[in-house]
């Protein structure tokens, strides 16, 4: 089969089984757009801003486990992608990003809409390519999918000069089933001897703790994680990215850990003697002050990325490999040993944990005349416990992480690493397109939502009736909270004087808008919104504007030095 470069791009996507491509046309990709015309196999979703395309593809990838695909033109098209690519990179999300480039002969001449896309994106992609030969185009695209989806996943960009896609020049087409790179051989199995050592240490533990992260979600190892945790009867905490990998409603689950983690999770981390870190990377928002992190613990660390091991925290037993086979191996070894960790020690450890849990660090006042944001999230969870929930970044994100009990992996979709405001709504559109029959909610705030608000238009065009829960406190809440705590309440530029009327805004985009101002209206409003299955509903909840996220480990503090909510006795001894 002889195809032009443009036809090759489209045929590769078909052969790869790509369902959606999120993109925006422009000069350098017009040949490709012409090849997309009139075919239905790959559905193109026209966004309103290229950043939205990356977040939609990213949301799609996080929810489905399949790579998200993006197409944009050269120059500004490509630079608009950068925030979304960096977002995916920080959270190890597989994306294949195709960009047009000016024709090869004029590269480097400051041509119209030229930028060094490969150079600009190099620090925030797993790998990138500039295609110089149309005969290598198909193989390059295959490599992009292979690299993006294997090992520690991540975004891969393919920059394609316009002359390469010239419809007049045809070359033989062959899409390889497999590619192999001599320089890239991701490890799958873990070292059996290391896993055996880990099992021995686990069996000796008196105060064990499991700390698992996004790697378990990405590595499809939720089943193994749950089996291991239940078999051992150990307490478990999840990182922000790992929520849902272990059922959030289970008794062994202590909630999220870290800066806004629960009291019991952070205290158990601090006091444990054996820490089993699984697909987590000891992020600074998790560890707090490094020198006081888990001071009594021997640490086992399982991760597919060797560079994540001992990056910030020294580890006693490193295991490099995919989380799923390593956990399966570990479970087999533990069961075959016929041994169990000391039951008396474990029981006494659980008694200690229950005493921390009894503090009730996530309780909040129930008698407020104002809508408490935590209440909105709790009510949302009651209504749609199995929903896919995306979020933007800030207080609302933390409240979802704390109050929405995710029981399944891939249902909690947020920008954890880069912390990208504007992520939530386009990501929700990507999820909804993948799962049209499932409830998909974007929890956001009035500041975040305005960063990609234009995608409301895309949601209408492609019939993505997501539900938007806007926790409107008329502040950039997390910024305001830091200003309250560390800048003596000098609220420097953390509010907007001229917020839009979100109800009218939603209506202007062809959707349904609601404003909810009283606590008693929260539940009925959510019920009504979820009844409107075919409509995007924008719920603008006017919330208590001074509410803070608790507990909080302030920057530079150790994980057990939590600031608890003022309504709990604030002078309580924390040890």
């Amino acid at each position, binding site marked *: 089969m002889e195809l032009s470069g443009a036809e090759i791009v489209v045929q590769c996507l078909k052969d790869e089984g790509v369902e959606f491509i999120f993109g925006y046309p422009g000069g350098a990709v017009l040949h490709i757009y012409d090849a997309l015309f009139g075919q239905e196999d790959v559905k193109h979703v026209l966004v309103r801003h290229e950043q939205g395309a990356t977040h939609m593809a990213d949301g799609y990838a996080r929810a489905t486990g399949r790579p998200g695909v993006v197409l944009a033109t050269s120059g500004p098209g490509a630079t608009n992608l950068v925030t979304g690519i960096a977002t995916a990179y920080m959270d190890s999300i597989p994306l294949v990003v195709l960009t047009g480039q000016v024709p090869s002969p004029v590269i480097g001449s400051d041509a119209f809409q030229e930028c060094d896309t*490969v150079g600009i994106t190099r620090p925030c992609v797993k790998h990138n390519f500039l295609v110089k030969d149309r005969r290598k185009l198909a193989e390059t695209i295959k490599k992009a999918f292979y690299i993006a989806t294997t090992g520690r996943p991540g975004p891969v960009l393919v920059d394609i000069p316009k002359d390469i896609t010239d419809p007049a020049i045809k070359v033989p087409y062959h899409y390889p089933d497999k590619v192999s790179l*001599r320089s890239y051989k991701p490890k799958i199995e873990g070292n059996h001897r290391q896993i055996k050592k880990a099992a021995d240490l686990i069996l000796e533990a008196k105060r064990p703790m499991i700390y698992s992260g996004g790697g378990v979600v990405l590595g499809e190892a939720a089943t193994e994680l749950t089996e291991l945790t239940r078999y051992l009867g150990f307490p478990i905490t999840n990182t922000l990215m790992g929520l849902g990998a272990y059922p959030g409603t289970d008794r062994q689950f202590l909630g999220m850990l870290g800066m806004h983690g629960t009291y019991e999770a952070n205290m158990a981390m601090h006091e444990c003697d054996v820490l089993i870190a699984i697909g987590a990377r000891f992020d600074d928002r998790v560890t707090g002050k490094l020198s006081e992190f888990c001071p009594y613990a021997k640490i086992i660390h399982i991760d597919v990325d060797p560079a994540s091991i001992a990056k910030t925290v020294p580890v006693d037993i490193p295991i490099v490999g995919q989380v799923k086979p390593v956990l399966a191996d570990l479970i087999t070894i533990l069961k075959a040993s016929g041994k169990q960790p000391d039951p008396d020690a474990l029981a006494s450890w659980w008694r200690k944990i229950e005493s921390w849990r009894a503090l009730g660090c996530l309780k909040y006042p129930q008698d407020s005349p104002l809508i408490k944001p935590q209440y909105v999230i709790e009510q949302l969870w009651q209504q749609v416990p199995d929903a896919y929930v995306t979020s933007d970044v800030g207080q609302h994100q933390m409240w979802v992480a704390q109050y929405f009990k995710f029981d399944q992996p891939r249902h909690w979709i947020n920008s954890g690493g880069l912390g990208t405001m504007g992520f939530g709504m386009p990501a929700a559109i990507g999820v909804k397109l993948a799962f049209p029959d499932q409830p998909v909610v974007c929890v956001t705030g009035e500041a975040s939502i305005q960063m990609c608000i234009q995608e409301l238009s895309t949601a209408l065009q492609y019939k993505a009736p997501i539900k938007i829960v806007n926790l409107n406190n008329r502040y950039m809440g997390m910024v305001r909270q830091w200003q309250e705590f560390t800048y003596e309440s000098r609220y420097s530029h953390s509010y907007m004087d001229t917020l839009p009327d979100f109800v009218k805004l939603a209506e202007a985009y062809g959707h349904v808008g609601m404003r909810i101002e009283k606590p008693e209206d929260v539940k009925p409003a959510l019920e009504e919104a979820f009844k409107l299955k075919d409509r995007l509903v924008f719920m603008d909840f006017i919330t208590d504007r001074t509410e803070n996220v608790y507990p909080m480990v302030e920057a530079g503090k150790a994980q057990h030095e939590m600031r608890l909510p003022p309504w709990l006795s604030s002078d309580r001894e924390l040890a």
Partner: protein
Amino acid sequence: MRHIISLLLENEAGALSRVSGLFSARGYNIEALTVAPTEDPTLSRMTIVTRGDDRIIEQITKQLNKLIDVVKLIDISEANHIERELMLLKVRAKGPAREEIKRLADIFRGRILDVTGSTYVIEVTGNSAKLDAFIDNLDNSLILELARSGPTGMLRGEKSLHL
């Protein structure tokens, strides 16, 4: 601690900037960097001289290994190795200094590659410390120009960096 990391990488456009970008993005320091193709035209060999404690060097080698274009690497300074750097020096060579510089070059087994009535161009090779010593023994005001290649090196004996 000073380390010398030798690596084989795909001879692709942009491979060098992936490596140098990694160092600047993560705040590692590069003291010297050399790169040239090998006997296999698809591979380049790069030598990086860097400094850091064990934890940093471990991260550097892991992060380098993560780069898709890096095929293989070793820290040659961890074992018995040979290190060589080339230096070219243009010096003012007049009066009594002219003879002294010649003697110094002989002691360091340097070669004088270019001679004029008032200048020499001297080539010295050796490990970096030897080149430093040569410069230290020379009156600095006589140096007109200095170019060092940065070190390259390999392990002694059977063990080698190849595919």
